[in-house]
């Protein structure tokens, strides 16, 4: 296939809006190509979107569906010759997830949080999601084996456990959510900060995070640790964010990437002492990111309307449910994690929500280097992913932001600096924040760029780059971003003008890390004991079997394998 004359944005390869042809051969970007020719003259062309943090598969997502038949009634689409039926808005069914991401031009999406014990379920759902390539980040922050290794300061055993657990869960990376708090929630409490000891385990959240970061780098995993801070969602929590970030600034990354990726930063950039004096601390957070290079983040943008909050931060969810008098699901996972699901509605007239909305945008606009911040909504916590075009156009258009702010609570200007920010992002920024940076942050060599050898995941949007004023014509831009002219995945046109053309299965990426045998052996003694005494299943039935990943893509890592650097 040849894509002719597109205005290509490929920031990873230094291409910022150049008219050029792209060639595809055997599903990869190639120097030469033949076959079908797509005329993209003047049109915006980018690598396929890469979403590094989204809740798309697994127990808590399905719990969201089951408890929200009200949501499933929305967005209903009947079966067609090519597509299975679609349902749902904030908690769509698996088919809708694949089709809707593809229509928007996204081709790779990562499930943000999968518990090891329930990873089989995660993979059943991932496998059901058509088209997109995917992976799942594995939860480690409230895990008994992890906490014991941290308590004993045994980083090599910890690394052995991380490697073992990633293999058992077929996971891609290390996810940490409210470390220690999930274990405290096992008896109904929480931790108050990074130095608050975890009941029953003699470790602090800070120690857990730091040790996992060390283990992560020891294993040379493609991705860094991916962290959801303690105190997420609480007024005044920006101090926890800064403290946690500082903990990690002297750790050496084992690859050309960050040492910590912070997720949904918006929910942790809060000032004030309560909801009454709640305000944005985005400027302080942004300053930190501007002054340090060891951390990256994603926005976690909140948009007005319906959402379903779902997170391993179970105490936070309980709090949400009590605050909003809403239905509440909770699911604590033995020896490993916690989680909760609560429907939410964010309202323009609620000052808190308006400030939250502003914070996400402030963060993105105040961080100078777009490689440090990804565009996300923590789908579906801040908003469903189908609303990404709304976020993008808010970033690109100050008049749009101004118009929106005029409809919000009148106290907003007192709580945030958003109105003062004139910066408007351009296509290079957006291509970085939705493609190039996400791939680099995840450590995915063949994604997020259009150099030779990259996966031929390409999006062509129906926008004439030279004719569209992204500041003024934001409505047009939003419409075009919602429905790509062409979405190409692995060299196959999967979506055209919003119509799904083909539904090839995507691949599931997971990381197989090698560790020294003596560390593995020491680890297995612990693991066997845990299964004999505490788990409710047998060790031999625990790990995810091959049958659940018919389309696996294994990435090697660890101490015994020579590695290629991710440039």
């Amino acid at each position, binding site marked *: 296939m040849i894509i002719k004359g597109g205005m290509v944005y490929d920031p990873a390869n230094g291409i910022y809006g150049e008219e050029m042809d792209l060639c595809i051969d055997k599903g990869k970007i190639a120097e030469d190509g033949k076959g079908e020719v797509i005329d993209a003259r003047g049109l915006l062309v980018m690598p396929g979107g890469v979403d590094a943090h989204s809740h798309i598969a697994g127990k808590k997502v399905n719990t969201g569906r089951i408890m929200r*038949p009200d949501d499933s009634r929305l967005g209903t689409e009947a079966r067609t010759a090519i597509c299975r*039926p*679609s349902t749902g808005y904030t908690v769509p069914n698996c088919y809708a997830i694949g089709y809707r991401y593809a229509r928007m031009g996204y081709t790779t999406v990562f499930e943000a949080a999968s518990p090891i014990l329930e990873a089989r*379920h995660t993979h059943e759902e991932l496998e059901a999601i058509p088209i997109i390539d995917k992976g799942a980040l594995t939860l480690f922050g409230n895990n008994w084996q992890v906490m014991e290794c941290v308590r004993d300061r045994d980083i090599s055993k910890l690394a052995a456990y991380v490697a073992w657990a990633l293999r058992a869960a077929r996971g891609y990376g290390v996810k940490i959510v409210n470390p220690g708090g999930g274990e405290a929630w096992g008896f109904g409490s929480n931790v108050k900060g990074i130095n608050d000891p975890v009941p029953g385990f003699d470790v602090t959240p800070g120690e857990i995070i730091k040790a996992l970061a060390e283990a992560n780098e020891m294993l040379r995993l493609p991705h860094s640790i991916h962290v959801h801070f303690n105190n997420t969602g609480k007024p005044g929590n920006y101090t926890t964010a800064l403290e946690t970030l500082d903990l990690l600034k002297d750790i050496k990354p084992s690859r050309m990437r960050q040492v910590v990726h912070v997720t949904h930063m918006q929910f942790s950039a809060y000032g004030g002492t309560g909801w009454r004096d709640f305000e944005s601390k985005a400027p302080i957070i942004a300053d930190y990111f501007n002054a340090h290079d060891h951390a990256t983040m994603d926005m976690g943008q909140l948009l007005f309307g319906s959402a379903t909050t779902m997170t391993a931060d179970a105490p936070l969810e309980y709090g949400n449910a009590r605050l909003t008098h809403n239905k509440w699901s909770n699911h604590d996972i033995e020896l490993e994690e916690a989680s909760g699901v609560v429907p939410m509605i964010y309202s323009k007239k609620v000052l808190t929500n308006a400030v939250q909305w502003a914070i996400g945008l402030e963060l993105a606009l105040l961080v100078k280097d777009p490689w440090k911040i990804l565009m996300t909504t923590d789908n579906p916590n801040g908003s469903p992913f189908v609303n990404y075009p709304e976020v993008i156009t808010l970033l690109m258009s100050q008049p749009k932001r101004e118009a929106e702010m005029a409809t919000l609570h009148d106290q907003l200007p007192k709580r945030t600096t958003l109105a003062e920010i004139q910066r408007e992002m351009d296509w290079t920024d957006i291509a970085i924040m939705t493609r190039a940076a996400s791939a680099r942050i995840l450590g995915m060599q063949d994604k997020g760029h259009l150099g030779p050898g990259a996966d031929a995941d390409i999006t062509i949007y129906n926008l004439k780059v030279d004719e569209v004023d992204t500041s003024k014509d934001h409505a047009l831009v939003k419409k075009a971003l919602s429905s790509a002219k062409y979405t190409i995945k692995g060299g196959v046109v999967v979506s055209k003008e919003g119509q799904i053309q083909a539904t090839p299965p995507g691949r599931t990426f997971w990381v197989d890390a090698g560790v020294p045998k003596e560390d593995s052996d020491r680890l297995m003694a612990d693991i066997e004991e845990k299964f004999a005494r505490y788990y409710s299943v047998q060790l031999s039935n625990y790990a995810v079997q091959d049958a659940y990943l018919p389309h696996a893509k294994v990435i090697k890592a660890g101490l015994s394998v020579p590695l290629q650097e991710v440039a």
Partner: protein
Amino acid sequence: MSEPILIKDAVCSFCGCLCDDIDVEVAGSRIQRVKHACRLGSSKIMGHERMQNPMIRKNGELVATSFQEAYDRAAQILLAANEPLLYGWACTSCEAHKKGILLAEEVGGVIDSTATVCHGPSVIGIEEKGLPGATLGQVKNRADTIVFWGCNPAEAHPRHFLRYSSNSSGRFTPQGRDGRKVVVVDVRETRTAKNADKFFRINPGSDYEVISALRMLIAGKGESIPEEVGGVLKADLADLADVLKSARFGALFFGLGITHSRGRYKNIDNALSLVAELNQYSKFVIMPMRGHYNVGGIGQTLAWSSGYPMSVDYTRGAPYFNPGETAACDLLARRDADAALVIAADAGSNFPRAIVEALAEIPVIQIDPYENPTTLLSDVVIPCAIAGVEVEGTAYRMDGLALRLRKMVDCSLPSDEEILTHILESVQKQRGSMSTKEA
């Protein structure tokens, strides 16, 4: 005879406990012995006399036929129907479920599981209030207070006590049964009640009032409660409320005693609210005791495929869900369902008689290893290999944990998944030739 093979840690495919520590001795391609399983699981794994041949009803009698004829006749029945019901699913693997959903979409039918005669009300309750729960290992390791309400695990989930609940021990519960308070609430004194520290016998149909009274007591609003609620003295209820409030970790297990009784889903709604409110004072979780080993699985698979866990109507091409309208018993009671596929469940035995009579009036396709009353009503009978014994696959435990079932022995019969695939192929073929006929 060849050397016996020992299969360790097999998963039992009978009840929602999904015990995965079963040892099975296989010799000469037959199961010889089952260790660690309870009476129900042993019985299942050891097996029973079963059907060997597909059958089609001709002149009122079931006669042996070929598999392909059976598939074709089944496809014909489903295609000819306006509102075919595809029911059952609880005793087969998720791999079969996926094919069943595809078939329901293809023929424009309604797919429903045994949940609608079991924990369907729990699903509806969860839709109202959410499910504050945990995995079974959390109960094992943490629970000092356990309540069994309207369920009888001693007879329906025999190894539950020892593996997961009252008699289990874990990290924070080293004393096991001795360190726990076990409360049983039921309308009669069951074998489970004999394991209780305190048994509350309540009047049939009064669960809702008793739960409401407890909620009021817990919230400190006990003054307006009468001296007796549902056959229980207020003072006793107040004691129970204190026990629940002062738990370090409480777990409430409930069963068909409250889903089947007066109030149905409202009872569950109330129980879920009770547990949510208890979390203001103590850590508390709640869990439905799922009866069949994979009724959880069809719920999960249907939910991620359609957005809804049961009673999914595909007749208009997009999923529509409205229990009370689209559940199996509703469709049959109103005589809207004009054909039925019954798989991995025995509707003939487990539906109300009047509904079974409605089933008897329509063409029925049965996919099952064993002859049962549904067979007596069926027009097409397709015997299958047994998932969990002869076929590998996925099942979901009562707490939502997915496990992989083993294949222990071979079987010449096709699996449910294979049968459904063949029926689907026949449907597509017949539909293809139907449209060429019209053209």
